[in-house]
Each structure stands twice: as structure tokens, then as C-alpha cells.
């Protein structure tokens, strides 16, 4: 392993960061989409067959990280899930037009339902007259007026396969309402009762496999998890930088706030955890790009960054004092965004359990192999 910084990714990160600097902060992702589209950002990590540059998942992680670093709405990862699902399909495959629009930067897609389908008890979809009738309620992040929704739902067939369907705004918005329970002045995600939605076969773009945890045969979920981890890492880094800047300049009790160990040490610990997160996230991405197994690494990268970003942002808000709670302080935005971003693909606890199962199985499988080898030798 040579873990020195990658100069190519550094340049890409710098380009994206500069391009995104014109995007307006706030819940509406229209300007973030436009800024990313202006630099062909949606094409960087997409497959060549879909009009992309095929720069790999590491590049995709870098893009989502830079969006998170400014707490911009996630206009990126849902679209890349669709693009991944259709990477092997032909031009005439269902959803190919949407994937092409995503790569061209003309269509924002937000993924939904991935927190629900990881639970085996979640509602299942019935097949009626060649169309799926899902059940339950999806919570959809509302980042852009014309966004499509990539909805994950589990079928009621014996093996309970989880499918991904792209629902254009014209399909999903009419039945959607304000999510409940949700209160306070911040924007609310949309609530989509699935029993009012019919999913046709033409809207299904891929599948995440069966079982719990999901078998994810094409690695779509794992890739999505890594990109989401990148976004969360960016959120943590952005809030941390704001907290450091604030406390290094703000004087209280005749000294800079950062000169107090009670302030500096939690921020130092957060920096250490973020550095660990960076390596876990990029390791998972690297393994994906190298064609190596990365499902466990993806789950761990996401769980780690979700917890670290939440902790870091809470510390960063605290470091700002009361002004951190005002809408004039950018750090407040991170506090809003992390709430749903941290659990959009399921709670960290469930991800840790999944990773724990992988690890325990690997240890015992190795032990069995070792026993067999010893028996053969004897």
C-alpha cells in the first residue's frame, strides 16, 4: 500500500471545489446541479457507454465529498445509482434515457427507500397486471423541483428481490406530501405513500438482490454506500473547518477560543476520526475500482462516516456558541443536512451488524480452512 495523496484526484477535487463555489447554499440544489453540470461533473465517474469519462468510484466519491463540504444538497449520488444500474444496458434499455440525462447534467435523481428495504420486515410490492404495487411510505429528499426519484422496494415473491425504479417528477410528486412527523422551520422531505404509485416494468432499472443483508449481486448498493459515505465525509470536513476558523479567530476571556483544550481537543479528536474516515472511504472506492470485493468495506465506510460526521457537526455547532444556531452562521446548515443524510441508507447500527456478520464469517471460514489444511498435512 502506498497511501500518499493521489495528485490526479487532488486536481479533480480542486476543480470541483472551485466550480461549486458559485453554487448557492440552501436546500434548493438547482444551482449546485448547474455548477456541477457546467464542468461536466456528472460525466466524470459515469461509464463511457453512457457518455461518461469512466474515472471510477474514487472520482465519484470525490464529487460527493465536495458537495458535502459545502453542505450543498445531494444532487449527485441518486443519479449515479441509476447510471451504475444501467451501465451494462443498451441504449434502448428501460431508463437509458434518464441515465443519459443524468450524465449530461440535465436530470437530478434522488434515491429513496434504501433505508426501508434493508429491513426484512418492510412492506412488499404485489405484482398486478404486469405492474408492481408497492406498499409503505417513502421519505424523499426534496432537492430540486424536477428531480426524479429512484425508489427501492422489495417484491412479495418468495425470494423478496429488491428492485430499483425511476419515477419521474410527474409520477411521484402528485401523491407526495410533507413528511410526517416533521416540525420546525427547516424544510421537510417529501412523504410518498407507495400504495398510490404503480411501477411499470419500463421504470425498473435494476435490482439489489435478495435477503437481508441484501445480496447486491452487481454491487450497486455498495457503490451507492461509498458515494454516500463521501458526502457524509464532506459534511464532517466542512463543519470542522468552519469550527476551526471560528474558534481560531474568536476571543473570549482574553484568549482565542481554540487555545482552550476543552475546545481544541474534541476538534482534534474529530480531525483524527475524519482522517480515519477518509482512508476507509477511499479504500472501499479503490477496491471497487480495482475489481476487488468491497461490500463489507462499503458498509463500514458508511457507518463510520455517518457516526463521525454527526459527532463532528454537533461539536462544531457547539464550538460556535449561540451564533452557530443562527441562520447567519453557515454551520447551522450542516446540522440540518446531516440529520437525514446520516440514515438515508439505513441506520449505522444496522450497517455495523452487517459488517460484523461478514467479519465473523470470514474468521470462522479461515479457521475451517486452517483445520482442513492441518488435517491434510497429518
Amino acid at each position, binding site marked *: 500500500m502506498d497511501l500518499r495523496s493521489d495528485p490526479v484526484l487532488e486536481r479533480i477535487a480542486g476543480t470541483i471545489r472551485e466550480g461549486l463555489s458559485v453554487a448557492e447554499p440552501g436546500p434548493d440544489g438547482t444551482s449546485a446541479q448547474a455548477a456541477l453540470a457546467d464542468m461536466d461533473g456528472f460525466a466524470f465517474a459515469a461509464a463511457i457507454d453512457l457518455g461518461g469519462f469512466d474515472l471510477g468510484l474514487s472520482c465519484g466519491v470525490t464529487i460527493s465529498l465536495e458537495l458535502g463540504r459545502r453542505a450543498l444538497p445531494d444532487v449527485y449520488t441518486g443519479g449515479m445509482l441509476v447510471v451504475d444500474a444501467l451501465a451494462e444496458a443498451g441504449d434502448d434499455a428501460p431508463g437509458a434515457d434518464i441515465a443519459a440525462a443524468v450524465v449530461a447534467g440535465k436530470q437530478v435523481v434522488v434515491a429513496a427507500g434504501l433505508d426501508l428495504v434493508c429491513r426484512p420486515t418492510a412492506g412488499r410490492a404485489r405484482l398486478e397486471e404486469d405492474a408492481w404495487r408497492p406498499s409503505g411510505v417513502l421519505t424523499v429528499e426534496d432537492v430540486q423541483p424536477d428531480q426524479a426519484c429512484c425508489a427501492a422496494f422489495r417484491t412479495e415473491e418468495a425470494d423478496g428481490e429488491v428492485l430499483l425504479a425511476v419515477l419521474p417528477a410527474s409520477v411521484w410528486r402528485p401523491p407526495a406530501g410533507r413528511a410526517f412527523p416533521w416540525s420546525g422551520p427547516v424544510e421537510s422531505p417529501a412523504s410518498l405513500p407507495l400504495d398510490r404509485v404503480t411501477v411499470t416494468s419500463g421504470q425498473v432499472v435494476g435490482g439489489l438482490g435478495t435477503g437481508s443483508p441484501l445480496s447486491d449481486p452487481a454491487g450497486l448498493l455498495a457503490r451507492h454506500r461509498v458515494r454516500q459515505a463521501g458526502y457524509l465525509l464532506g459534511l464532517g470536513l466542512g463543519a470542522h*473547518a468552519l469550527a476551526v476558523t471560528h474558534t481560531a479567530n474568536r476571543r473570549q476571556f482574553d484568549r482565542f477560543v481554540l487555545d482552550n*483544550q476543552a475546545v481544541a481537543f474534541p476538534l482534534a*479528536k474529530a480531525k483524527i476520526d475524519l482522517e480515519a474516515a477518509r482512508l476507509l472511504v477511499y479504500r472501499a472506492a*479503490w477496491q471497487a475500482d480495482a475489481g476487488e470485493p468491497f461490500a463489507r468495506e462499503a458498509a463500514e465506510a458508511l457507518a463510520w462516516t455517518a457516526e463521525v460526521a454527526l459527532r463532528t457537526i454537533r461539536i462544531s455547532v457547539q464550538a460556535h456558541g449561540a451564533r452557530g444556531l443562527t441562520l447567519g452562521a453557515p454551520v447551522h446548515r450542516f446540522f440540518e443536512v446531516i440529520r437525514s443524510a446520516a440514515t438515508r441508507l439505513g441506520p449505522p447500527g444496522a450497517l455495523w451488524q452487517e459488517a460484523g*456478520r461478514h467479519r*465473523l464469517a470470514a474468521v470462522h471460514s479461515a479457521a475451517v480452512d486452517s483445520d482442513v489444511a492441518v488435517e491434510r498435512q497429518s
Partner: protein
Amino acid sequence: MNFGESDAERALRAEVREVLGTPPVRSALDDLGRAMASGEREPDVRPLYRALAAHRLFAASWPEQYGGRGVSHLEAAAVIEELVRGGMPDMLQVLSVQIVGLFLLEAGSEEQKARYLPKLASGELFATVLYTEPEVGSDLASLRATAVRDGDGYRLSGTKVFGLKSGMSDLGLCAVRTGTGTTKYEGISLFLVDLHAEGVTRGHIASLADEQYDRVELDRVWVGEDALLGAEGEGWSLLTRCLAIERTGLDYSLKAARWYDATLTGLIPETTDDALLEEVGRYGAAVDAGRLLAWSTISQLGRGPLDPTSAAISKYHTSETAQQVATWAALVHGHGYGLRALSPEKAAVLEAGYREGPGLTLSAGTSEMMLELVASSAFDRPDVIGGAGGGSEI
């Protein structure tokens, strides 16, 4: 970033596994195993080290002229990982090769390198550090031991404590005061002391861990001018530079991995509940992250001065994680480590780990010092990810 193994690393790992199976090494490992099983807390590892050194695997990153193979620091790290996984206790190797040896490579004169490094690489000599003193603790610049000019050499006097392995070592890298300045950081010098010399008394301080702390008394111990490392009175800058080398975290990450793996061998997948599975995942990721942080720091070695912040990050995470894993193992496996399906051998590993754990977040700089280093140096660096400048590093 390249998270894969290079061909050279892979080949070295394979060679190490082969060497570990050769009769002299196997025999030395078996002797160690028997000694530990009989309750010996600190068995002599030197025969094993010498058997490994015969294959030039003991100080692989050193130049060939000094008994190494001239491989990169990353390749040497692969060798160490494989040796430790194969059962090599690493403390004396860390002290002798990774700390004192690297210090000599960085700061020693050509004569000092030629005189000592080949012997350290072959296991003919072993070395340890003599830094802190009673009442000095982590505030190393407050040390009181002195070196006074005497003819064409110096007389060293003082008491050094909380070092390790001095009983098995021949040389001590010793920090003493040769003068005073406007600050306490001036006037500190570093010497290589022959631990067999007249005036040196070595003893133990009864300690919690298997590896006992040492107390080394220096009573007017004479050393020649050629024992001085670097310039007289300018030892502090050398120390701060070389202390970072102690903090790659590789050794701590290997302890964390060893204790984590041992913990898992006593868990049966079918009967492990969700709460415990969650911890298996969480600690596993922390152990992995520690290894990545250590390798990230090692990736910088040999390419200019080691960034002390990177080393502090690595040292903090790896030592804290190792300690937490050892404590977690005690909770998981319960009283006497007999709650689940742990073998007696693994239980012994974890029991010793529990007692060793607290020392890890104190040695080579306390966790609090690491946080201080990170807070004071990292936040304003624009080129570090998460730094105030926005960060460019990927």
C-alpha cells in the same frame, strides 16, 4: 493512493512466511511459546531475532551496507506485519531497529552508522531508549540527568525510568543535559551509552504489563566524544524529529489486530447476538482504520521529514484502538475469559493485552500530547484535509 499490495510487498510476505517455517526460526518460536506457557513474563526473544536476522529480515529497510536489504519503508512494514502475525514479539525489535536504529540512520555520523548499524541489524547488539526520569514524565525537556566534560569524553549521571528491555539491550540512546540556555529545550544532548559499562545499574520497576518498566542508574558513566549524536546541546530538535518516527502506529495497529482477531475466535456466529455483532463491526473498522493510518504515515517515510501531525494522528488512533479492543475483549469474554468459546492460548493473549493496553496510550507520547500536537499544528495547514484552508489532500 494505492490500497493494493505491490509485487515486492507480496514477494517479501511470502518469503517471511517461508522463513518462519525454517527449523532455526521454528525452533526459536517454539522455545518462546514454551517459555510463555510456563508463565515466564518476558522471555528472551534474542535467539529468535538472530535467526530472523540471518535472512536480513530484521532491519529490511536499512541499506545493504548496514545489514539491511535496502527495501522501502513500505516493504519493510510488510515484513514486520508478517513477522508479528507469525508470532514474533516485536517490542525489542521496535526499540532496537525501528527507533534507535532509524534514529542513527537519520542523525548518526558515518562512523556511528558503520560501527553500530550492522550489529543492530544482525542481532549482535540490541538497543533501547533512556529518555524520561522520575518526576519528569512526558515533559522530557525537564530532564535532570547530566553529561559533564571529562577529558576527551563525558561523564553521564542520572536516573532513567519507564524504559523497556534494557536488561536485554547493549546500548541505550540517552537524553541528558550538557548545559543550560534561555529555555529548557536548549542544552539537551543525546548519547549512545554502553549498558555494560562501569557505573550502569539496570533494574526493573514492578509493573502491570508482562514487559516490566526499567530503572537505569547512571553513576558517572564515561563515554567518548564519539558517543554524542548530533551536536552538543542541540538534542531537542533531533528528539522531536525522531520521536515522530516512533509514532507511525504500525506496532500499535498490529497489537490491535492481534487482540481483535483473538477476540473473534471465541465467538460462534450462530449464537452471537445483534448487539455484539454491531461491536464486532465497529471495532473491526477501527482496527482497519488504524492499519491504514499507520501505512499512510509510513508512506511518507524516506520522502523528506515526517509530518509530526500525521504521526500523532496515527499514534493516537492506533494506541487508543488497541487499548479499547483489549478492554472490549475482557467484557465480551467475561470472568477469566471463559464466558464463550475462547481457547486457553487466545485467552492468555487477551489477558496479557488487557494489562498492556494502558501503557500504549502513554508510551511514545501520551494521547493528550497527541491531541495537543494535532490541535496546535494541523488546523492551520491549508494542504491537510479538514484544515482551515479547505484541504486539497485526497
